[in-house]
């Protein structure tokens, strides 16, 4: 029990804060000094009402997700500090206990187990990459620890997980993709060629978008699947039909910049409209040389990176707390671009956890089921400091939140918000009712 970790404290003046190594060492010294003789006793000496609520933060510190993990960590740290500064949850501070999952599903399950059995966490939280969520969720269900993921995956709402897994702080890819169809159809063109990487991620875009577009009377005139190992794309471009009005592209990975450059060389100055997902260029400076060809094209954004002329006060507050400027870059280094389209999910999820625990009168791990029921009972989540990305609707049956999606236009090496979808644009029929599952 002497395992102390991140304790987020309130008085930090800066928008960001760093977990205190000193505390770790002080805890070590303290533990060695005496308390170690009575492991496990300390928490029970403390009054239950003042003991921190322990939130196990499953973060991609190493492995392929580390670049996202860095910003998930910053956002989580800021959200925890803001919540603590406002009195915590039911008057108790929250303590973030960070464990690195290595962006690995097996390690992810181990980490969830550590949260539940070793650290005595109240909940587990924060996972982004889908394969880690899918690897960890069954263990969370077995150990009956609420698992709040921030992953965008459709796996929660699809019904493949369990009652202990919830996604109340970020929308899922199915709702995002289908909500793009009305804008593309009405503003860019009805004949769309899709270019996507040939695996599950690309297939989802292909399937969800083409179904939504066809429902509106549009047509996907070509579906060009690119093998994931490809690093040059020139030979695929002649497959783009001549009557294409819009190219919908969702390339990802290191070859994205090459893809854009080669597409530019192929089309020259006369090109169809371009629509993409910012996942391709998350954390990449839009003014990067080689991306000029994207001028005038459109991107889905989970949350607009550039604050624009009239940001909401909530967005401004959120940026200041996380330490991000009006261009979505770090206040410490304007060239350090954040993963702005995704990381807000950590902030909003922690605020949902707070609201859920307060509604449930949460006291300790015996109230975990009550916490889940309280979150399942949520519906409207209004735009505010707790939800700076915008208003949301939570679906308690599918454990998935629904919200506005943003479409931005590239111009002058930055992006400007061009369209905000309605929440209704993102709806689809329920595929599961988790509330019928026993705890």
């Amino acid at each position, binding site marked *: 029990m002497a395992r102390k970790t991140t304790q987020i404290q309130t008085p930090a003046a800066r928008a960001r804060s760093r977990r205190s190594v000193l505390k770790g060492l002080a805890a070590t010294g303290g533990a060695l000094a005496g308390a170690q003789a009575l492991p496990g006793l300390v928490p029970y000496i403390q009054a239950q009402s003042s003991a921190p609520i322990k939130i196990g933060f499953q973060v991609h510190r190493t492995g392929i997700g580390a670049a996202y993990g860095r910003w998930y960590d910053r956002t989580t740290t800021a959200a925890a500090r803001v919540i603590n500064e406002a009195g915590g949850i039911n008057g108790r501070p929250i303590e973030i206990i960070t464990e*690195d999952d290595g962006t690995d599903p097996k390690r992810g399950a181990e980490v969830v187990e550590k949260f539940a059995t070793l650290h005595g966490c109240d909940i587990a939280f924060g996972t982004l990459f889908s394969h880690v969520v899918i690897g960890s969720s069954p263990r969370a269900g077995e150990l009956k620890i609420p698992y709040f993921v921030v992953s965008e995956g459709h796996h929660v709402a699809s019904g493949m997980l369990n009652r202990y897994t919830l996604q109340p702080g970020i929308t899922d890819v199915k709702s995002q993709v289908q909500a793009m169809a009305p804008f593309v159809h009405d503003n860019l063109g009805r004949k769309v060629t899709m270019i996507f*990487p040939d695996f599950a991620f690309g297939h989802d875009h292909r399937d969800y978008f083409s179904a939504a577009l066809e429902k509106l009377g549009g047509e996907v005139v070509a579906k060009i699947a690119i093998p994931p190992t490809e690093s040059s794309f020139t030979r695929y471009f002649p497959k783009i039909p001549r009557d294409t009005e819009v190219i919908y592209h969702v390339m990802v990975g290191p070859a994205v910049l090459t893809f854009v450059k080669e597409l530019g060389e192929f089309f020259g100055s006369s090109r169809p409209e371009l629509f993409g997902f910012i996942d391709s260029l998350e954390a990449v400076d839009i003014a990067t040389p080689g991306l000029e060809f994207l001028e005038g094209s459109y991107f889905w954004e989970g949350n607009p990176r550039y604050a624009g002329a009239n940001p909401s006060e909530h967005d401004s507050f959120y940026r200041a707390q996380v330490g991000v400027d009006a261009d979505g870059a770090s206040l410490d280094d304007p060239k350090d671009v954040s993963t702005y389209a995704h990381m807000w999910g950590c902030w909003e999820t922690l605020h949902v956890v707070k609201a859920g625990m307060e509604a449930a009168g949460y006291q300790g791990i015996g109230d975990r089921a009550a916490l889940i029921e309280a979150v399942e009972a949520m519906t409207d989540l209004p735009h505010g400091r707790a939800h700076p990305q915008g208003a949301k609707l939570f679906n308690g049956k599918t454990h998935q939140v629904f919200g506005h999606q943003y479409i931005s236009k590239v111009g002058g090496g930055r992006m400007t918000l061009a369209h905000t979808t309605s929440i209704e644009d993102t709806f689809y029929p329920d595929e599961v009712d988790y509330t019928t599952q026993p705890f």
Partner: protein
Amino acid sequence: MIRLAAMVLLLTPAAAQAHATGRGLVLLLPTGLYITAGVLAVLASVVALTVAPARALRAAFRLRLVWSRAPGGGETAVSLLALAALAALVLTGLYGTRDPLANPLPLTIWTIWWVGLTLTQAVFGDLWRWLNPWTGLHRLIAPAPPLRLPARLGYWPAVAGLLAFGWFELVDIAPADPTRLARAVAAYWALSFAGTILFGAEAWLGRAECFSVFFRFIARLAPLRGAGGETRVGPPGAHLIAHQPLPVSGALFLLLALSTVSFDGLSKTFFWLGRIGVNPLAFPGRSAVVWENSAGLIGAWAALAAAFALCVLAGLALAGERGRLREAFGRLALAITPIALGYHLAHYLPVLLVNGQYALAAGAALLGLGEVPVTTSFFNTAATVRLIWLTQAGAIVVGHIVAVALAHRLALELLPDPRRAALSQLPVSALMVLYTLFGLWLLASPTGA
């Protein structure tokens, strides 16, 4: 498990994968041109060394006396301090924050020590002689070793240690986890200390403890070296010439040091991931490739060792020598050292740039100096990406040029006739040119793990 794997395959990796930056910008660089230039530079050095007179080669690597004493003293005290620091770090690993980028133990072991100390040894010489956490306590206790480390064991215990270390670093699913690392470090310290007690510190740290062995080879690349009561200065690698020919196990140790870091680079490329049937845009995590990476680690070592041995053999044949493979292999393998160092710098430079900041931040927090912000924006701009890439490529090219020169010089110890010595070097030099190409290709390849 199969069901889970199937589910993973079916499901949406929603948040899309690796960043476009870094390697994305590298893919836009004219790396083909850079690679050609780098390979030609090594090739030119081969041509020059083949025709260079032996006299010039001997002169180039000559050591000069700069001090009629050798640095020494304080080893016991410094080693005891290092041991105390290590103990504190292990406790921090066990009881401090769980975040591997904030806990001082993983930052110290993986970044400051393994990456940083290796590079420092190559500049300043054998600091590990002072900093190792065993000799101080051993001298304090100073028991006469009850056992003698058998000579026929050669460097094999060190080979086993380095292999285990490489496996832990490359294959284990959580080598940076503070608890796991603390246990591994404590266990290794205890094992090695037991070795020094049983066999004596000199023998155990000389041939059996892999890090002492590795750091000592690297330290011989530094310009200054104190030995035998004298301090001498020479160009990189000059201090390796007087080294006794290595036994086969010693040669294989150096080849393993190089093959491990090479395989670490290879295992992240689209090329390798494609070969093992892994989608490079949706890397499934280390736990999914444990067997592939284990086999790759061993396979890369076996392939490099076999290629090197064949080239040494072919060289001897060209020079008309027979039956001296073991000796030649053991002597020429010393020339692998600068290549291993070049790969080390090239491979770990990005880690050093990012995790070095986390180490500074942890240190600042420890000393109450406030926050040190961490940035990775140098992977986001074309100019800095080019600078980083050329630094990495430069390390590989320079490492190989030094290695080619060193191998030619070592060949003169083997075959005093300059013409035959030069002939014997043609296959080994060809291998080094190819290995330059391989290293630069690794740096330029798209990666996905």
